[in-house]
C-alpha cells in the first residue's frame, strides 16, 4: 500500500521514499539546511535516514528564509 501523507499542508503519496532522509533526497533537499516535524514532534537530523514515513503522517519541512 502506498502511504499518503500531509507534506507541508499538501496531501501526497511519496514515489518510493520510506524515510525522511529518502523523502528529502527525492527532492534534492540538503538535510543540513532543514528542520523536520512529524505529527508535531521534532525529528532530529541524525535520525532522518532511519525515521520511517507512515500512512497518515503530517510532516512539516522548514528552512530559514530572509526575514526581519
Amino acid at each position: 500500500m502506498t502511504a499518503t501523507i500531509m507534506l507541508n499542508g499538501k496531501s501526497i503519496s511519496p514515489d518510493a521514499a520510506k524515510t525522511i532522509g529518502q523523502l528529502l533526497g527525492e527532492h534534492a533537499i540538503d538535510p543540513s539546511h532543514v528542520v523536520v516535524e512529524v505529527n508535531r514532534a521534532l525529528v532530529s537530523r541524525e535520525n532522518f535516514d532511519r525515521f520511517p514515513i507512515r500512512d497518515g503522517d503530517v510532516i512539516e519541512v522548514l528552512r530559514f528564509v530572509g526575514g526581519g
Partner: protein
Amino acid sequence: LWVEDDVDELIIGGVTVHSRLITGSGKYHDDRIIPEVLAAAECDIITVALRRIDFNRPSESILNNIPKGKILLPNTSGARTAEEAIRSARLSRAMGCGNWIKIEVINDQKYLLPDNSETIQATEVLAKEGFIVLPYMYPDLIAARRMVEAGAAAIMPLGAPIGTNRGLLTKDFIAMLIEEIDLPVIVDAGIGRPSHAAAAMEMGAAAVLLNTAIATSDDPVAMARAFKLAVQAGRTAYCAGCAAESSEAHASSPLTGFLDN
C-alpha cells in the same frame, strides 16, 4: 561618561557584540548581495525567518548567503499566539544555528502590531528553556517590566509599524523604557532613514534593528554603510552627552570687545 569605541561593547544574554546595528535578511531583490551588505553594515547579528519549503520549487537556503561567524537571530514571524511562537522557536533552534530568538507574535494584519501579552508568555517559556530571548514589543513600560521578569535578554520596542519607514513615532515611550529598564533596549521596526537610527542611539537605545530601509533602498550596500555611520554617530553623541536645549538664544561668540562705530 565618554567611552572609547573599542570598549563600548553591547552585552546581550551574556554575549558581547561589537556592532549596535542589527539587520534583517528579508526583501532583498537578490539575496546574493547580502554578504556585501553585511560587510558594509559591519553588523554581528542578522535576523532570519522560518518557513515551509515549497517542494515544487525548493529555493536556496538563506544560510548560503550569510557569512560564517554572524549571530543568527531567527524570528517567530507568522506566529499569532504564544504557543505558535514557542513551536517556531524550538524548530529554529533545531536548525543548529544557536539559541537566539526574536519573539514576534502578531495577530493584527493591518498594522502588524505585536501582542505584548502573548509575547510575555512566550518569553517566559523560552527563557526557561535556555533561549536568548529578544521580544519584539509595543513600547509599553508595564509590559516591558513583565518581559524582564520573564527572562528576556533585551527589549525590542517598535519605533513605527513594520516596513513603514516612519521613524520614531513612539519616541517618548521608548525613552521611558530606556530610563526604566535595566536591559538593552533595541529599537526594532519603523526606522526608515539613517537620521532615525542616529536619533534612537542619541536617546540611549542600545542598538537598532532594521531591514526594509536597507533592503529596499536603491543601493543597499551604500545604505548599509550610511546606517553603520549613523548608529556610530548617535552612540558616540549619547556617550559624549548632548548639550542642553534652551528656549532662549545664548551667543556662542564673546559679547565684549566689539569694534566701535
